[in-house]
């Protein structure tokens, strides 16, 4: 994509700097004026720009918001997951790793020995939740602070996901 030829005044640079300063200052002082006015009860009609004081103040999520995954549990606390690999198959980022094992109860038969999600790779598309035939994986934890000091720590294991 070719960039637009700059005009003479733009190339002078100094004028553009002041234009930018004016724009920023306009919003800053305008908002300050509106906030002060509301605080003093002078003008109730115009609201100033809103900033959430994160992390003390948190924005409410929509119930459909896709946050960090969790694995749901059976009544006895074991994972509902039967390691059918549907989520692993559908995952477009290939970030789910499941290894299946033989469950002692023949009515359950199969369970995940290993269930890892690499959240550093995950694209939070929610396909895994949709694909799951057992309602075993959900993205309703509301946890969005997923940060770590290494890539390895971004891999969540079954015990992390069950909490």
């Amino acid at each position, binding site marked *: 994509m070719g960039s637009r030829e700059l005009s003479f005044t733009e190339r002078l640079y100094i004028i553009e700097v002041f234009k930018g300063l004016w724009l920023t200052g306009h919003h800053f002082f305008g908002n300050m004026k509106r906030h002060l006015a509301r605080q003093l009860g002078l003008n109730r009609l115009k609201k100033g720009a809103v900033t959430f004081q994160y992390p003390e103040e948190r924005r409410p999520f929509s119930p459909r918001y896709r946050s960090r995954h969790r694995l749901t549990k059976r009544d006895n606390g074991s994972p509902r997951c039967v390691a*059918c690999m549907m989520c692993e*198959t559908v995952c477009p980022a290939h970030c789910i790793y499941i290894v299946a094992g033989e469950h002692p109860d023949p009515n*359950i038969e199969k369970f995940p020995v290993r269930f890892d999600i690499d959240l550093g790779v995950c694209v939070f598309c929610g396909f895994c939740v949709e694909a799951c035939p057992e309602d075993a994986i959900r993205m309703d934890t509301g946890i969005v602070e997923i940060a770590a000091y290494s890539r390895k720590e971004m891999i969540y294991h079954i015990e992390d996901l069950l909490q």
Partner: protein
Amino acid sequence: MPTLTINQKSITVPDGTTIIQAAEKLDIEIPRYCYHPGLSIAGSCRMCLVEVEKIPKFQPACNTRVSEGMVVHTNTEKVKEAVSGVLEFLLINHPLDCPVCDQAGECYLQEYYMKFGLYDSRMDENKIKRHKAEIIGPHVILDTERCILCSRCVRFVNEVSHSHEIGIFNRGSQSEIRLLPGKILDNNYSGNVVDICPVGALTDRDFRFQCRVWYLSETKSICPGCSRGCNISIHSNRQRPHHAGGRRVMRLKPRFNAEVNHWWICDEGRYGYKFIDDPSRISLARVKEKGEFLVLTLDQVIGRAGEKLREALEKVGRDSVVVVASPRLTNEDLFVIRKFFGEDLGLSQIDFRVPDQNLASGDDFLLRADRNPNSRGAEAVLLDENGFDLTQLLSMENSRKLQLLCLFEQDLTKTLGEAWAKKFLQQFEYVIYVGSNENETSVLSHLTLPSATYAETEGTFTNFEGRVQKINQAVEPLGDSLPTWQIVSKLACALGYRYNYENAEEVFGELAERVVEFQDLAYEKIGDSGVEIPDISKVQV
């Protein structure tokens, strides 16, 4: 030869053909569970119902023979409704545990439901509970809830393996597959019941929960388990290495070949693939120095092998070098061995016949006593000119000191027994071992070169009937390993010969020109089902 019409297409078929067979020739799909071309006709599942004009009721296509002027419809609304109704009955007590079922993805209940069912379930009652995950033999696990009582497995043990281990017991809705009293499903062909089971009732214990079937890629190959050369498909998992501990080859399935194995393979062959991803695989080339193995790059080690070979030839002479090839190698491997060692270096002591001290036995169906896939090919390629017999050398009390032994895939310790093998190996100054897996012989060698297994290479095997069949590459060679013909070519290059084969096809082209038994054969002519070459013993050289 009656002529009939199926869905407005007419076809003439031999007398005694059934509608389902005639439809197959016309590529018209008729759903079926109990019908299997290799077994007798049961007509019990009723999935193959078709409409025949002038017959008021539906006819099972598997059990109705064609007659002159018959007009069959398989796709009318009436037929579709009937098939969907049959499927609904078959699925009444089905547990729908596809998420845990290993058959999911290759299950004909799933397939036919999507094609012919797509109804909403009307089953409001409680489903009948039955035995689940029941181990019925060393290789097979039974889930009677998933069973639709097609009786294919029962007919298989009665008609093909003649071992009569399982049957259908009880009556009506209580019917289920059980083992006969005091028996377990333990015969050398038990794995085939898993293949023919159209649903997830019989699944493989070896493959159980290892991997989902849709992760697998299929490669056409030949079973290297014995000289029968059964046609197989290698199912490998190349994309998701976290399954089954990184094993790449997940299972083998038989592939239909009317001339060799039909639909079946034996369990020994089916489960004999484990060595491919075994920890005992030799993945790196190495030399022994002061009793310890030193891993080097493949080219360095091949260079070292070339030096040793040149040294032996120049210092002592041609009769101080012995090459023991193997009937486990492909025709291409053997040809390059013959060309380099036999023709270019002029060695005469090349053989592949090692007297096996623990000879296995075959059976009267598929398994052969000769457990090597390419004995016939090795005879054709290696035995036509030199009269050297390794057995004589092995049995001789040798006084002269031999220089170099080059072993290809030959575990002498296993075939000859430890004492004899050690005695034989000690006659040599230097032993080169080219092989895929570690064994007691490879450990005794001075220099080891890693070769690829049959799943990692291309080539051809000649079975005991003289049928040349093609193997294809399913997975990449492990580590530094290479197909044996490439290793030998590199060794030849190290000694200054020009070997620049690009692929196995080129080697085969030269093989077909040079070896009389393979004349007029072309690599692409072999195809998926192989080509039979004229009786080798009768060919006039």
